């Protein structure tokens, strides 16, 4: 039993060790490929340890291994260590697996990078894996928060990996700022919780929560602040604006950080602290509503994107909304299940999209077309991922998505349930829109609806072919995993947390198939002109094109409020704080210059001063008092 804790620590520390080695041994890092292999070997070891740790766990039993970290007078303020139970080790496997596959895949994807920057990439990857695992295994809020910030840092570094591109640098800064806005509230929430309970430890807070409501009564504000942190990380409305821009990073990074692991940290946090959120049903309801709204909003946005990565990014936002909605409905387990399945198939989709981008040299789905014949392997795995995401039976996303729909219905969130069903329809639609345009459409077709499809072969698509084995192998592993999970969940039914109504499964399948059918009619058969469709929905299409003006709103707030406020504070700093100091230093200089004059260098003058001083002292001592 203790073994699971030990194994989890090994899984956690292996990438940390790789990071240290690569970070300190500069020649190795600059050598590129050897550095990559070192990182890959360590992450494979980490994966093995994670799987072993999971197998060693006992149901309903958590293994804690703690080391005192900040001792205070009475006991320990906080500790570091691992909290290994069935859930955290399962998440650990997901992180280790996707991290490993992405690192292998990156060998192919970033093959053209210069060695030094390839080494830099793998340093970041190792640091990310280490931080994310520390987050997953954290036994208290402090360790969780530190790792939370570390993954945010890695996200920033990896989005800005191609830092010479201005868009990438801007996107990195945007991601950093927006998540930081949530993190500030998260930190406040943690400290408030500590001042209330006197502990950061999950288990101790859990016991308080079990012991009755008095100890934790009225913590609505605290849980709401913690939720804001999670919302920033997991790209919930209105913090979702950073995630689509984060697609400026390399595609494997998007797969690892912005689809499978880091962005789900918020969901994971709420799942881990579900006992806390159960104390505040009103906050939970807000979580559910915002989650469902995010899911629907992002789904509509995904329908109008032409950049394949942005479609996937909005889809990620949407799926994160699903998870949050399930947690908000009070069934955190459903959200966690979707987190795991989503991690697998969304990583698959991103990596497949990366293979396509690698081959075509463009992100624009209208610049692709007809890739099914040229890249059959990529096509197959992409379709597997798409079917999983759409929620088709026997694929990974089906059971978890249906669980979420059932959870929101049973949880009494009828309107969010409606939003989620609509979002499910849109999900199937926009994903198959990509499939039909990019993979099945005429090669390099003119923009849809222009009338003549065979406009001619693009230059680069003509050479498009499947990626090398180092890239396709991770794809096949993930695709197989998505199938196995889907079939496994279909055959061995999970113990349901709730009694879902019987009409739910047909509804979910019908909605998904409806979305696929619409996409087929519009983009496959072209029975319905996309133009007519967009005219019909012009009112929402226009808004979606402009991302519902949310980014503009944020930019406005940023420019007008924050920048002008900063300018005011800068003025105070420059002219008042610095001004006082400058005046003081100028006075000191002048006074020193004046005083310098009395140093004549004549020994007699000094002697005169001494004699005068002695005389004065004598007079003073003898002065009648």
């Amino acid at each position, binding site marked *: 039993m203790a073994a699971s804790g030990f194994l989890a620590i090994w899984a956690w520390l292996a990438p940390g060790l790789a990071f240290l080695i690569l970070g300190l041994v500069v020649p190795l890092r600059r050598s590129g490929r050897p550095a990559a292999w070192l990182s890959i070997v360590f992450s494979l070891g980490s994966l093995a340890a994670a799987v072993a740790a999971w197998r060693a766990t006992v149901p309903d039993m958590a293994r804690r291994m703690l080391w005192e970290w900040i001792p205070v007078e009475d006991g320990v303020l906080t500790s570091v260590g691992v909290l290994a139970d069935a859930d955290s080790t399962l998440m650990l496997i997901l992180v280790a697996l996707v991290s490993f596959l992405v690192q292998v895949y990156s060998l192919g994807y970033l093959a053209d990078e210069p060695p030094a920057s390839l080494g830099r990439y793998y340093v970041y990857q190792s640091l990310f894996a280490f931080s994310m695992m520390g987050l997953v295994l954290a036994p208290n809020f402090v360790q969780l928060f530190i790792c939370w910030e570390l993954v945010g840092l890695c996200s920033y570094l990896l989005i800005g990996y191609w830092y010479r591109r201005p868009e990438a640098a801007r996107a990195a800064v945007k991601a950093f700022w927006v998540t930081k806005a949530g993190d500030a509230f998260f930190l406040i929430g943690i400290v408030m919780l500590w001042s209330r309970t006197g502990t950061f430890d999950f288990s101790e807070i859990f016991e308080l929560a079990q012991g009755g409501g008095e100890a934790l009564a009225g913590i609505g504000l605290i849980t709401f602040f913690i939720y804001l942190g999670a919302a920033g990380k997991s790209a919930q409305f209105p913090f979702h604006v950073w995630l689509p821009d984060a697609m400026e990073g390399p595609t494997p990074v998007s797969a690892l950080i912005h689809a499978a692991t880091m962005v789900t940290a918020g969901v994971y946090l709420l799942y881990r602290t579900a006992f806390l959120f159960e104390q505040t049903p009103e906050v939970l309801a807000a979580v559910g509503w915002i989650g469902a709204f995010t899911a629907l909003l992002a789904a509509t946005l995904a329908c109008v994107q032409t950049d394949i990565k942005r479609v996937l990014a909005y889809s990620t936002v949407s799926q994160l909304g699903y998870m949050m909605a399930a947690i908000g409905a009070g069934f955190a387990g459903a959200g966690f299940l979707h987190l795991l399945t989503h991690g697998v198939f969304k990583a698959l989709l991103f990596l497949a999209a990366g293979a396509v981008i690698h081959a075509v040299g463009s992100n624009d789905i209208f610049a692709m077309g007809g890739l099914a014949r040229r890249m059959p392997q990529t096509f197959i795995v992409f379709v597997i991922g798409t079917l999983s995401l759409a929620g088709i039976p026997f694929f990974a996303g089906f059971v978890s998505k249906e669980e979420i729909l059932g959870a929101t219905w049973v949880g009494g969130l009828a309107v969010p349930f409606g939003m989620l069903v609509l979002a499910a329809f849109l999900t199937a639609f926009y994903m198959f829109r990509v499939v039909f345009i990019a993979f099945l459409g005429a090669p390099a077709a003119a923009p849809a609806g222009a009338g003549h499809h065979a406009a001619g072969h693009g230059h680069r698509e003509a050479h498009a072919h499947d990626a090398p084995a180092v890239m396709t192998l991770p794809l096949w592993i993930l695709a197989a995993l998505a199938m196995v999970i889907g079939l496994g969940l279909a055959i061995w039914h999970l113990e349901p947390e709730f009694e879902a109504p019987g009409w739910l499964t047909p509804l979910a399948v019908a909605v998904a198939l409806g979305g696929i059918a619409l996409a087929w009619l519009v983009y496959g058969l072209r029975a319905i002109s996309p133009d007519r469709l967009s005219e019909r929905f012009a009112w929402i299409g226009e808004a979606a094109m402009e991302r519902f003006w949310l980014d503009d709103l944020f930019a406005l707030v940023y420019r007008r409020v924050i920048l002008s406020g900063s300018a005011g504070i800068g003025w105070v700093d420059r002219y008042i704080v610095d001004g006082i100091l400058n005046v003081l230093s100028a006075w000191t200089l002048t006074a020193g210059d004046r005083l310098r004059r009395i*140093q*004549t*260098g*004549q*020994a*007699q003058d*000094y*002697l005169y001063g001494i004699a005068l001083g002695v005389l004065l002292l004598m007079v003073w001592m003898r002065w009648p008092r």
Partner: protein
Amino acid sequence: MTLQAYLTLAALLFCIGLFGVLTRRNTIGILLGIELMLNAVNINLVAFARCLGDVSGMVFTVFTICITVVEVALGLALVILIFRIRRTAVADHLDLLRG
């Protein structure tokens, strides 16, 4: 002769010496002033020794005279060196200490 008379003489001698040290422009003159001040001290020591009947004051005087001789020898050597290097022995021109 009372003790006060000796002390007055010593004080006058000290002040004359100090005045010489502070006002003479010639380095040798300054050394002479220092001699006068030291001898004022000697007079004090001897006067107190006589008055209190304690010979230690006289012993100190012998020491002081020895030290004075050494000091004068060193001082004159310094003056000669300075004169050789700077071609002057006027105190006003020696302002290396100026800040």
